[in-house]
């Protein structure tokens, strides 16, 4: 009996590696300490009411950001483990099987569980505020999106200690990811982790499109929207067109593995190349899904910190929207080497290059926004300035990669790795950091320490170039991605050593950021104005942090950068625009449905991973019942009385 249990446990839990035991202990301790703190300070009720069941977009945004920073830490540790393994030839730090798991989880976590939630966090924090709305269109759905993402991420990360991690690359190409070559549960964790959080992403896409199209403040025509909001619209449109493809693709892969179907198998008439086509039909737009909002952030940041109107507003809008369309026509450039023939390759090469045009236009727009401006270099602007050269060089190598006949020499080499890290770190991560620093005072009501921020910026920036520039060269020398080790006679040692050093410099940069946050919490440099950067858009017209109802009265918008224009009018001696009388505000009630339903999804996913139908089927039934049950709830909203609004506004020092 005891032996049986031991056998089962050694199969069920991942064993045999000190790293894993360390992680086990870490996870158990962290969870226990969270439970302890909540219990000791009697905070369970508060936690449930204020966070778990909240439908407030600002709090959901904060939860997204916290979760994504945790994931950034996990993905970053993965990255450093890989760099350590590659620091010199013939290293035996990680076994090949672990190396394979780690690059797989690094990729999945960074794109799907770091970039996506950080992006959704910023959407949530600022889109309703920028368009003068009280919340998103579907607040409960919004909370459901978050919890689905969270449960998906937890399920995926669980594979590290239970059952084993996925190990067939971040896009899990079959036949390698099929049962035939990959019988373990890791691949199923991958499928269900992504699937569950993917449903959440899809719903966020729908939610924000409706929010942006239908809930803008009176007077805010489409062409008067802040550029970040435009970029969110572009990104969300891309989400709703691309994510269903991912859902289907992963479902088919799961049906292959679970029911023995033959979509992508080598036998039975399956076609692995179809998976590769399908996954990139999602995967390529996905890249633009995450980068478009970064472009929006840069636009807002540049015009704010140059104290100048954004140059070429309509060019920018056209550029954003055309990128989100063309992004659907380029997927095959990820496999020029599949032997598709010259004409197919030439088509996809050109469609890929075409994307460089609107992207280039954006860069010019930012430059001419700076031209004849008055630029101050606080944290958000600093990250923007770090972004421009990084992204321009990344774009250059992107164009090089798009030249199909040359791509035969770049494909799957470290040249490619360096390229996409350059656009994803230089573009997406720097962009989201800029947004993170920009909106931090609006989220929490105090500023982050500038000096530590500069340290973090320079460490990240220098670390980036030290890490990835050598990878371009080592790629051209013939080093291919995903090699767990290489031999001395390759001549790649020096460059890899430098690259690893760069990786660790970025790691230190991250630690400085963590320290910066802790230090700033202690220092508590309060933002009493609500407008710390002399901002231009509506979110800066209200107090920091934004009150529950966002706007005491509906703002009426006349111009692009309405808040800036208002301030100019007042400066020129004009009167502030009169505000209408306060009215009770209609708000949604909290809901426990999202967390319950997401928990059922988690259990169902876990059951499917281990083929435990006794768990998976009841849990799926739980999902359905929760949904039905919720459909019967009609009492979903309430009003905030005028007195309470008046009190809140007065406490923030605002007359109404």
């Amino acid at each position, binding site marked *: 009996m005891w032996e049986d249990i031991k056998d089962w446990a050694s199969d069920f839990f991942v064993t045999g590696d000190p790293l894993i035991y360390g992680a086990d202990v870490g996870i158990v301790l962290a969870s226990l300490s969270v439970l302890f703190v909540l219990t000791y300070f009697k905070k369970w009720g508060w936690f449930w009411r204020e966070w778990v069941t909240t*439908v407030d977009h600002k709090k959901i945004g904060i939860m997204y950001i916290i979760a994504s920073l945790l994931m950034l830490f996990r993905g970053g540790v993965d990255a450093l483990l890989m760099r350590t393994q590659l620091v010199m030839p013939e290293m035996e730090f990680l076994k090949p099987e672990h190396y394979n798991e780690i690059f797989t989880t690094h990729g999945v976590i960074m794109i799907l569980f770091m970039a996506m939630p950080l992006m959704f966090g910023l959407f949530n924090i600022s889109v309703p505020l920028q368009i003068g709305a*009280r*919340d*998103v*269109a*579907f*607040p*409960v*759905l919004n909370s459901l999106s978050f919890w689905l993402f969270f449960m998906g991420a937890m399920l995926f990360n669980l594979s590290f200690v239970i059952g084993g991690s996925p190990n067939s690359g971040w896009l899990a190409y079959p036949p390698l990811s099929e049962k035939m070559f990959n019988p373990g549960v890791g691949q199923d964790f991958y499928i269900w982790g992504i699937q569950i959080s993917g449903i959440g992403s*899809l*719903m966020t*896409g*729908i*939610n924000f499109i*409706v929010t942006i*199209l*239908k*809930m*803008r*403040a*009176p007077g*805010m025509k489409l062409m008067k929207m802040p550029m970040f909001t435009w970029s969110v619209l572009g990104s969300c449109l891309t989400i*709703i*067109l691309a*994510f*269903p493809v991912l*859902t*289907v693709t992963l*479902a*088919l892969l799961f*049906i*292959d593995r679970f*029911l*023995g*179907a*033959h*979509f992508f198998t080598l036998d*039975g*008439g*399956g*076609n692995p190349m*179809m998976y590769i086509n*399908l996954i990139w039909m999602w995967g390529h737009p996905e890249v633009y899904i995450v980068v478009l909002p970064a472009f929006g952030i840069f636009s807002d940041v540049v015009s704010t910190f140059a104290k100048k109107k954004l140059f070429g507003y309509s060019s920018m809008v056209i550029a954003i929207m055309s990128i989100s369309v063309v992004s659907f026509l380029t997927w095959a450039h990820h496999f020029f080497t599949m032997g598709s023939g010259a004409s197919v390759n030439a088509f996809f090469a050109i469609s890929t290059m075409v994307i460089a045009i609107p992207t280039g236009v954006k860069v010019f727009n930012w430059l001419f926004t700076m031209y004849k401006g008055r630029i101050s270099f606080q944290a958000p602007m600093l990250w923007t300035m770090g972004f421009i050269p990084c992204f321009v060089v990344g774009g250059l190598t992107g164009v090089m990669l798009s030249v199909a006949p040359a791509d035969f020499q770049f494909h799957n080499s470290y040249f490619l790795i360096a390229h996409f890290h350059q656009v994803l770190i230089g573009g997406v991560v720097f962009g989201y950091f800029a947004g993170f620093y920009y909106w931090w005072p609006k989220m929490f009501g105090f500023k982050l320490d500038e000096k530590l921020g500069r340290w973090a910026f320079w460490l990240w920036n220098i670390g980036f170039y030290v890490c990835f520039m050598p990878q371009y060269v080592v790629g051209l020398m013939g080093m291919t991605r995903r090699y767990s080790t290489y031999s001395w006679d390759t001549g790649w040692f020096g460059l890899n050593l430098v690259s690893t050093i760069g990786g660790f410099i970025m790691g230190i940069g991250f630690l400085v950021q963590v320290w910066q946050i802790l230090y700033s919490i202690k220092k508590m440099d309060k933002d009493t104005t609500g407008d710390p950067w002399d901002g231009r858009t509506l979110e800066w017209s209200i107090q920091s942090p934004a009150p529950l109802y966002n*706007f005491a009265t*509906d703002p009426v918008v006349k111009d692009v950068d309405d808040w800036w224009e208002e301030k100019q009018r007042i400066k020129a001696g004009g009167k502030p625009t009169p505000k209408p009388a306060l009215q009770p*505000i*209609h*708000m*949604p*009630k909290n*809901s426990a449905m999202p967390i319950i339903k997401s928990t059922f999804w988690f259990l169902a996913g876990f059951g499917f991973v281990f083929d435990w139908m006794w768990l998976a089927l009841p849990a799926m039934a739980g999902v*359905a019942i929760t*949904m*039905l049950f*919720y*459909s*019967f709830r*009609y009492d*979903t*909203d309430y009003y905030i009385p005028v007195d309470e609004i008046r009190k809140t506004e007065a406490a923030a020092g605002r007359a109404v």
Partner: protein
Amino acid sequence: MAHNANHAVSQGHGHDHDHGHDGHHDMEALRQMGFWLFLITDCILFGTLFATYLVLHNNTAGGPTASELFEMPGVIAETFILLTSSFTSGLAVLCMHKGNRKGLIGWLIVTIILGASFVTLEVTEFLKMIDEGAKISTSAFLSSFYTLVGTHGLHVSVGLVWMIALIIQLTRHGITPVTTRKINIISLYWHFLDVVWIFVFTIVYMMGVM
């Protein structure tokens, strides 16, 4: 999906500024729009499944082919039943607009009965095929067939449960702006499934036996 959405809206947003009452009208319009967007995603979902089917439908790997397997009388019956149910769901909506709750519920029940017969026929067809040895694991053709048609069947089944829930809500609340929106949405969903079925019928069954 959209029917479980809750939401905060300030009075009279955006273009609909002149409405100015309690904002309920806006909210229902928002939810309707959300549902349209959901239908777009569902379209893409089915589109991907159709594409998969088209790529794989000749890969029978020595197993039965479409023309050997499909029995058209049953399929044609399914088609007529589903088309009729779409019509009856339309009648239900008409009754709703006239404020006729009984008629609305009655036609919904007819729609449910038709939908349930459709699902029953489909399940019977599947079971028979499996009995003949045409399983999902037999060939790529059958994998994509069962997945495509089964996904449609699953959508229909979800719709049935949803409709039953709405009937209960109608008996409790009557015809209100909220239930009106919910009925509009389910009928939209039902028509959508009908359109998808027409594609299934043409691309899978007609092309299969021809």
